[in-house]
């Protein structure tokens, strides 16, 4: 652990107090205007049932619609992160490869993805490319051929299996998109390792692959981790984009509820808080990870 100053009792100067009061005043005023000046009938009592509801049929508590959406968002994010790390690492290694061919393939991929809006990418993939792949692999038929037990088991990981082809389309698009960013993180991580490390490992008689595996990557990984963890938080937020292809994640569920109840502000506020709690929790984990990995 690096030595950090022990916590002092913070002193608040009069100036600080004035600034804080002014800020609180401004925020309070905006909230007040929002609540009163919008000509909107607030009905917060409709929200709790979408977070947690009592199922009369079975007599126990079930996840509400928004909570279900949040779970789908998490599923999507976790899978996309795992797959994007694999793709990103491979492409990142290609980016620093001595072979021109590999470098060009990787540069093309990263360039294409990073310079197109994700929304457009999602549409193109879902309607044109994804469709072809799904048909070729007969994903639909495969899902139908599964037994009920298998389906309910897989549903834990992928959500309702009858919507699996859509889920897969969304997952692949999200993975490709985030993979490009992770590739850049990996490349930067590898390039940040001092040339001396390369020279030393070469001096020990290692070939390039060996140096990469035993000397460079372990050190680079450590430098990449905070950035990768930050990318995971981005993935959670970016997953909202797939609501346009009707994946039932948090944003999509929110829109459906709004169409049904016309309670747009209450629902959007709830969704905002839900996303915030999720990503804030991740941020705390990332902070812990960074501290744990700090070396002197």
């Amino acid at each position, binding site marked *: 652990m690096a030595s950090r100053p022990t916590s002092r009792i913070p002193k608040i100067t009069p100036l600080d107090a004035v600034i804080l009061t002014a800020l609180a005043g401004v925020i309070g005023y905006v909230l007040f205007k929002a609540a009163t000046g*919008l*000509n*909107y*009938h607030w009905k917060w009592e*409709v929200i709790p*049932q979408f977070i947690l*509801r009592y*199922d009369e049929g079975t007599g126990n508590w079930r996840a509400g*619609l928004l909570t*279900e959406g949040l779970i789908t968002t998490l599923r999507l994010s976790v899978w996309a992160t795992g797959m994007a790390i694999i793709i990103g690492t491979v492409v990142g290694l290609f980016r620093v490869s001595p*072979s021109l*061919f*590999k470098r060009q393939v990787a540069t093309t991929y990263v360039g294409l993805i990073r310079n197109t809006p994700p929304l457009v990418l999602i*549409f193109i993939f879902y*309607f*044109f490319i994804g*469709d*072809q*792949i799904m*048909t*070729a*692999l*007969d994903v639909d038929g495969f899902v*139908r051929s599964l037994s009920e037990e298998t389906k309910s088991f897989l549903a834990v990981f992928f959500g309702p299996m*009858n*919507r699996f082809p*859509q889920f897969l389309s969304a997952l692949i698009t999200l993975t490709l998109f985030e993979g490009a960013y992770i590739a850049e993180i990996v490349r930067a991580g590898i390039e940040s390792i001092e040339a001396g490390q390369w020279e030393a490992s070469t001096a020990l008689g290692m070939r390039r692959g060996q140096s990469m595996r035993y000397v460079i990557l372990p050190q680079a990984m450590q430098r990449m981790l905070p950035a990768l963890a930050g990318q995971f938080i981005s993935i959670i937020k970016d997953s909202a984009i797939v609501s*346009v*292809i*009707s994946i*039932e994640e948090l944003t*999509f569920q929110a*829109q*459906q*509820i*709004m*169409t*049904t*109840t*016309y309670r*747009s*502000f209450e629902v959007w506020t709830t969704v905002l808080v839900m996303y915030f709690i999720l990503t804030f929790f991740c941020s705390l984990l990332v902070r812990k990870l960074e501290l744990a990995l700090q070396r002197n």
Partner: protein
Amino acid sequence: MKLFRLTTLLTIFCLAALILGPAHAARAAESSQLETILKRGTVKVGFDTFKPWAMKDKKGDYIGFEIDVAKKLAEDMGVKVEFVPTKWSGIIPALLTGKFDIIIGGMSVTPKRNLKVNFSLPYEFSGMSIVASKSMAGERSTLEDFNTPGTKIAVRLGTTAAEAAKNFLPKAEKLYFDEESQTIQELLNNRVHAVVASNPLPFNLANEYADQLYLPLKEDFTKEPISFAVRKGDLDYLNWLNNWVRVNMSKGWLQNRYHYWFFTNEWENQIQ
């Protein structure tokens, strides 16, 4: 390195063969979509949430007029029904790329849509209406009153309400939104004079916000045929759907359901 390049090329070639091969084979052996549905044992229905056509209830199940129609249709076919909620703006491309077998979502027949999809006989008729803000629109009570350069009208993108606004109110300024709730919010915030939408939405809004909103027109200003949409080039399927509509119209089943969802509030407690 040569080896690597060769493998890459081979992989791409195999993928292409995989994708193109079965697709052609399938096309050659393809019969009616009806057969496909029966073989699968499930009919996939595309729709988007519109109150009261299709909505999510508290449990997360879909309810509404279109949902009843879809369930009955599947029952008469002897198959299960699978609902595929799809954003309205992309619902026709989704049908064309085979994400589902049929659109049952309160889709009005328009010649432009008909160029891309086939429509069955109409199974209901819906009407357009206007709901306006009292403070903004004040005393206006005819369509002509709203057809002025200073008037702002909010409509949902890709709906026939948007078309109707273009045709009936060419001089007014139209603002397009992706969701109906956004158009309503614009109206309540007095940023637009009126919202054009299919009844019963205007009617219900004027009731809920009686102090701010009103219905300028006493009657619906359009009467639009609503039909099932399916992919082109499938006569058998279309014939079955047309006769399904004929039969259920003559029995009065469709009218009965329409009345329940559009003119009663018995179902309100299921959604909030």
